[in-house]
């Protein structure tokens, strides 16, 4: 009897362990399937275009802007930030594998030692502080924003490849998932309520994009004056849209959200610095 209990409990633990790895992938597939069921004609690869997938006119405008991006000078500023050596002579490129090429798809990653999610922005700041420089504010679009506008282009074409391995990572992922599905703000909407359940529907004048693919193309230059938005600044804007006071950009809640949200984009190619309305 004792033996049986022992065997059963081992099997139970095995199931739990297997489930821990499978759960995020099941989540992602379920979300992708929900979008595919509603819009079988939209190709998975085109999810990176978000709301543009629903409007040929908007896509044409996007293509025209992207042919000669009017915000190229901003990306140049970012390149300068990236290339300029620190006081100690080291560079950002020294902090990343392959000099920073094809790395962004691995972010956010879970740092088991520090017990927290590390976004690409945090990795850039870690590089700065490790080399005796002060950290940039994550909400400062003129430093961190511009820096990522260039640094992320070095990973263009890389596929999103976020991993959730181990208990701590899964807990952070689950926290992000809860955030995504928690109703917020006076309008009482969750992220999922708009970007999963209402994909393709029009909110005021805008089609709602699908969650998979949303994390692949940051920063975005938005509107007539091409204002730079990092992904988390976009989170803040969406929170504000439902009348929730935005949370801290670079804070733990948005970082966990970005972890889950980016996982949903796994398998889709990155393209930095796109135009959005």
């Amino acid at each position, binding site marked *: 009897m004792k033996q049986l209990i022992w065997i059963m409990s081992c099997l139970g633990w095995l199931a739990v362990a297997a489930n821990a790895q499978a759960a995020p992938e099941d*989540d992602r597939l379920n979300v992708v399937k*929900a979008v595919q069921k509603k819009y079988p004609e939209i190709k998975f690869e085109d999810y990176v275009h978000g709301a543009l997938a629903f409007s040929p006119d908007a896509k044409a405008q996007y293509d025209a802007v992207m042919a000669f991006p009017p915000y190229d000078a901003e990306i140049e500023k970012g390149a300068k930030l990236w290339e300029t050596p620190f006081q100690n002579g080291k560079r950002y490129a020294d902090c990343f594998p392959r000099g920073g090429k094809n790395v962004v798809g691995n972010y956010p990653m879970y740092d088991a030692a520090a017990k927290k999610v590390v976004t690409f922005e945090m990795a850039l700041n870690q590089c700065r502080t490790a080399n005796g420089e002060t950290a940039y504010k994550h909400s400062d679009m003129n430093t961190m924003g511009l820096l990522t506008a260039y640094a992320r282009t070095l990973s263009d074409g890389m596929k999103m490849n976020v991993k959730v391995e181990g208990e701590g990572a899964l807990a952070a992922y689950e926290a992000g998932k809860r955030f995504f*599905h928690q109703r917020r703000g006076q309008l009482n909407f969750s992220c999922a309520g708009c970007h999963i359940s209402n994909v393709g529907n029009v909110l005021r004048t805008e089609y709602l994009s699908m969650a998979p693919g949303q994390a692949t193309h940051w920063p975005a230059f938005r509107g007539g004056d091409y204002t730079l938005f990092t992904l988390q600044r976009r989170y803040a804007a969406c929170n504000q849209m439902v009348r929730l006071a935005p949370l801290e950009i670079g804070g733990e809640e948005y970082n966990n959200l970005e972890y889950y949200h980016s996982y949903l984009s796994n398998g889709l190619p990155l393209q930095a610095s796109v135009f959005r309305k």
Partner: protein
Amino acid sequence: MKVFRGAVRMLAAGSMLLGVTGAHAAENAAGAALTADAAQALANAVFVADLAKSKSALWTTAAGALAQAQDAAKKQDSAAVIKHAAVASEQAFLGMAQLGYPLTVDH
């Protein structure tokens, strides 16, 4: 139902706390030209809004009403303070109660 009970419990606990901080703030504000009621209403609203913010549940409507109450306080308009502070407190409570809502499902 659970949500409702949760909200009621939170309101009850909240108003107990509020009684305490409110009275305290009224004392602090004794020198100001606001009525004691207005000073207390404002202190309550600040307290609940801070609490909602610490739970990442602060609605912009709560924050906006609180700013209006604070503006009114600067102009020593007690009636307006009470009016806006009440809205701020209510909206902040609703934001916190929302945390008890079930999560939305994917499809």
